[in-house]
């Protein structure tokens, strides 16, 4: 099979699986997960084949001549819009991590949704399973029950996978946007998967609407790009000449070049999708979905898509930044990224929900990537994207495993506690060893534990680039964020796994089945190993020993646009800072939270930080702020202003007034014109005619012939008269 055909076919198996499950297989759990997993494995296989073939071609060659195929999709007056598939080194690495994480998440989902367990006692569609009672060895006890909408889950998640594959293999922004939006829909469906839960419903809508804000801007950006270049394909748009032209023509607003403006608009799409401040609010709420979905959104697909986009359009941003007479969008991007990284990290410190911590850490890490792009470190951003995908998937799946184990305990003991609250855990390392070790690896990777973990390499590269590029603000912000990251990661590990169990449920927690642990193990391999393919050249000792394959591979894509930098003297400052914050944060976290022994104990930081802690715990009151600033006024605008006031009162009021006026006019005409004047006149006429009739009734003989006689006599007389005058003249 040719590469291009394979690329075309790549997104299709999940779509087919979606269609099959929705239309035919929704009754059978086994068939649906078989089909779903089979489909993603097929796509995975295709991705791997393509990846290997891409490796065979080599970075430079592939960057020069990417795999590309397209066909006409939309007509235009002068040009046709083509859509197609595309594979260059960036696509290849993205495809790599997407394929792996998706397969792992799919396999994990089988266990997570309790496949093979009995049906719940009173589970119903739209609520999470509540557990089933089974009789074992003569006594009843509760065990987790299978998800009532098992097949539906696999259908949705397959569609999700389709969206991501579509986005990745697209050769143009339009199909990228299509995949983007399909994922938006899927996130809506999956966050609201337990649709009868009020919180899930609200979260789903919040996710969709918040990302849609970004999407609308992005659509505008795409449209603008289409206007400006007549094409949306990367090959056409990122043509140096086109870029040059875009970068040198002014945009209507903000003093930007067209390229910069389009880049900014597209970036707003990223802000929405990758949950950057100020559109970050949806992501933590998205935890309402099942955990595999969280992993899917946070690692494999959605948020990665945002960063992927911004890296993908980097040539555009870069071109815009190159022209000094226009405002560059890059600082904005860097600012938002760095700010988000710090901002989210601070919130994460004060969260108790195991998934929420991770959610904020995702926002924070995405901020890293965005900031990296903002300072021009696109390769570092891509690198962090990949490593983050692996370890974040690992962490989410791990946390899901923890929750699952906790739920088992909760069901067993019947305690009424939140199985997601870290304060209710503790000491799980003994109960769930595989989960513990894999989680530990993931956590350390997140924290950037030096040298060993992938997270260290990628994060270090970002810091290094920031330092090297003299973006000191970004550098220090990110460094602080890294410290906080290490801190809350260790807080999480300590609270969850170390120490002693703080509740009965934690004591009865169980290791999860193999379908869940195997993905954890596989991902932990990548969480460690993937870092080793991208060790920077300048790194002491190791830099010479290990390959810096990633930098060369992805960098090849951008060498076409970015001039080779002069050999920058690489300082050791960022490296040291990186190691310092990582280890310091970890240590600090362990020290502070080591002493938590009771479930209802207040957070050790609560007292020293005081109101700041409350602020952090309430996420800086952003939800409330948005509700006050946007949501409530919008509701008022919609219900009261537009509908009740403008439509019903003003416009309809005018109409009704006109109607009433006409009505009254008609009444007036009838009562004062028609009846007295016109009818009166008619009546008078009739009366007059009657009078005449009375006068002339005498000559009515009633005999027809009489009348005729008279008439004819007149004719004769007339004839004679005429004849008389005719002859006279």
């Amino acid at each position, binding site marked *: 099979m040719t590469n291009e055909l394979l690329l075309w076919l790549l997104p299709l198996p999940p779509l087919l699986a979606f269609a099959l499950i929705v239309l035919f297989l929704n009754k059978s759990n086994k068939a649906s997960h078989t089909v779903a997993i089979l489909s993603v494995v097929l796509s995975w296989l295709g991705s791997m084949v393509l990846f290997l073939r891409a490796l065979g071609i080599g970075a430079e060659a592939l960057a020069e001549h990417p795999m590309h195929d397209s066909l006409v999709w939309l007509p235009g007056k002068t040009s046709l819009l083509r859509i197609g598939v595309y594979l260059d080194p960036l696509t290849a690495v993205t495809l790599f991590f997407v394929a792996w994480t998706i397969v792992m998440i799919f396999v994990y989902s089988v266990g997570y949704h309790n496949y093979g367990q009995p049906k719940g006692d009173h589970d119903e569609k739209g609520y999470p399973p509540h557990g089933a009672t089974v009789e074992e060895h003569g006594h009843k006890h509760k065990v987790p029950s299978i998800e009532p909408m098992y097949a539906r889950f696999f259908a949705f998640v397959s569609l999700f996978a389709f969206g991501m594959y579509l986005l990745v293999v697209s050769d143009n922004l339009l199909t990228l946007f299509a995949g983007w939006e399909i994922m938006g829909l899927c996130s809506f469906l999956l966050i609201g998967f337990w649709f009868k839960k009020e919180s899930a419903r609200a979260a789903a809508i919040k996710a969709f609407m918040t990302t849609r804000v970004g999407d609308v801007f992005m659509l505008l950006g795409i449209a603008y790009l289409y206007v400006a270049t007549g094409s949306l394909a990367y090959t056409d748009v990122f043509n140096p000449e086109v870029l040059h032209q875009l970068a040198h023509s002014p945009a209507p607003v903000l003093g930007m070049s067209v390229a910069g403006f389009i880049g900014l608009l597209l970036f707003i799409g990223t802000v929405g999708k990758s949950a950057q401040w100020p559109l970050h609010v949806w992501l933590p709420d998205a935890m309402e979905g099942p955990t595999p979905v969280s992993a899917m959104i946070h690692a494999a697909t959605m948020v990665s898509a945002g960063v992927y986009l911004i890296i993908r359009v980097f040539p555009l941003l870069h071109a815009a930044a190159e022209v000094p007479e226009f405002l560059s969008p890059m600082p904005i991007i860097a600012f938002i990224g760095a700010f988000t990284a710090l901002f989210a990290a601070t919130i994460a410190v004060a969260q108790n929900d195991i998934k929420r911590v991770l959610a904020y850490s995702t926002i924070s890490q995405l901020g890293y990537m965005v900031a990296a792009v903002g300072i021009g470190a696109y390769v570092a951003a891509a690198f962090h994207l990949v490593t983050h995908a692996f370890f974040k998937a690992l962490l989410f799946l791990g946390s899901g495993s923890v929750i699952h184990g906790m739920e088992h305990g909760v069901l067993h003991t019947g305690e009424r506690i939140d199985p997601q609250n870290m304060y209710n855990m503790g000491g799980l390392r003994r109960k769930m060893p595989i989960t513990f070790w894999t989680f530990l690896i993931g956590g350390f990777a997140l924290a950037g534990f030096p040298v060993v973990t992938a997270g260290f390499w990628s994060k270090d590269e970002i810091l290094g680039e920031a330092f090297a590029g003299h973006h000191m603000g970004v550098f220090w912000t990110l460094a602080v964020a890294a410290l906080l990251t290490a801190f809350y990661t260790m807080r999480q590990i300590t609270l969850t796994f170390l120490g002693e169990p703080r509740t009965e449920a934690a004591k009865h927690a169980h290791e999860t089945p193999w379908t869940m642990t195997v993905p954890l193990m596989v991902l932990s391999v990548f969480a460690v190993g993937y870092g080793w393919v991208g060790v920077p050249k300048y790194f002491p000792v190791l830099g010479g020993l290990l390959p810096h394959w990633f930098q060369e591979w992805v960098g090849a894509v951008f060498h076409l646009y970015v001039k080779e930098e002069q050999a920058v003297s690489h300082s050791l400052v960022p490296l040291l800072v990186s190691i310092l914050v990582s280890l310091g944060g970890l240590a600090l976290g362990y020290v502070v939270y080591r002493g938590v022994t009771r479930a209802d104990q207040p957070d050790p930081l609560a007292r020293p930080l005081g109101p700041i802690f409350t602020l952090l715990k309430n996420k800086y009151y952003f939800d409330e702020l948005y509700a006050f600033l946007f949501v409530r006024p919008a509701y008022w605008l919609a219900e009261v202003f537009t509908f009740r006031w403008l439509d019903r009162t003003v416009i309809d009021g005018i109409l009704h007034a006109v109607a009433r006026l006409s009505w009254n006019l008609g009444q007036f005409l009838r009562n004062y014109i028609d009846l007295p004047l016109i009818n009166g006149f008619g009546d008078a006429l009739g009366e007059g005619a009657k009078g005449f009739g009375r006068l002339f009734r005498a000559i009515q003989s009633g005999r027809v012939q009489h009348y005729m*006689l008279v008439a*004819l*006599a007149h004719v*004769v007389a007339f*004839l*004679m008269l005429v004849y008389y005058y005719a002859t006279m003249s």
Partner: protein
Amino acid sequence: MVAYWIFALVSLLMVLAALVAVTNRNLVRATMGLVLVLFGNAVLFVLLEAYFLAVAQVIIYIGAIAILIVFAIMLTRHVGDAWGPAFHRAWAWAVVVAGGLAVGLLFWIAHWPAADGKAKSPVDPQYTKLLGKALVAPDGYVIPFEVASALLLAALIGAIYVAWGGRRVKGPYPQRSEEKEA
């Protein structure tokens, strides 16, 4: 030459028949006189090369009007019988007026220069076809044509209504009361 003879013969016949039609006491005979006049008129039309009108004359006057008259006579008993005087008392006045009319008309015709005129040009062989088209052409005679149609329809409905005589309409199989009682 033949045409002259035919014309003379037919005209004479027509006048005689007309006299019969207005004087004969027996209405059926009077009607037959009328029919003869109508037929004679059709012959004159043929002489005038108005073939279509000749045929129409026969169809409408003889085929419809005369038959209707006959029918009416037969539907009303005794009316067709030769009974009583044909004219009412004031018939002399009628003679006077009709005579006056006759004198007037004859004078007119006699003194009208165009009266001894000859036909200007022959009739187009396609005349009937053209006439048909003219009758329904919007810039032709469609309005008189439609008015005539409307008139005929009105007459049709009116005649039915008037002659109906208020009889009740019954179903095709009137239920006889005996049958019901049985």
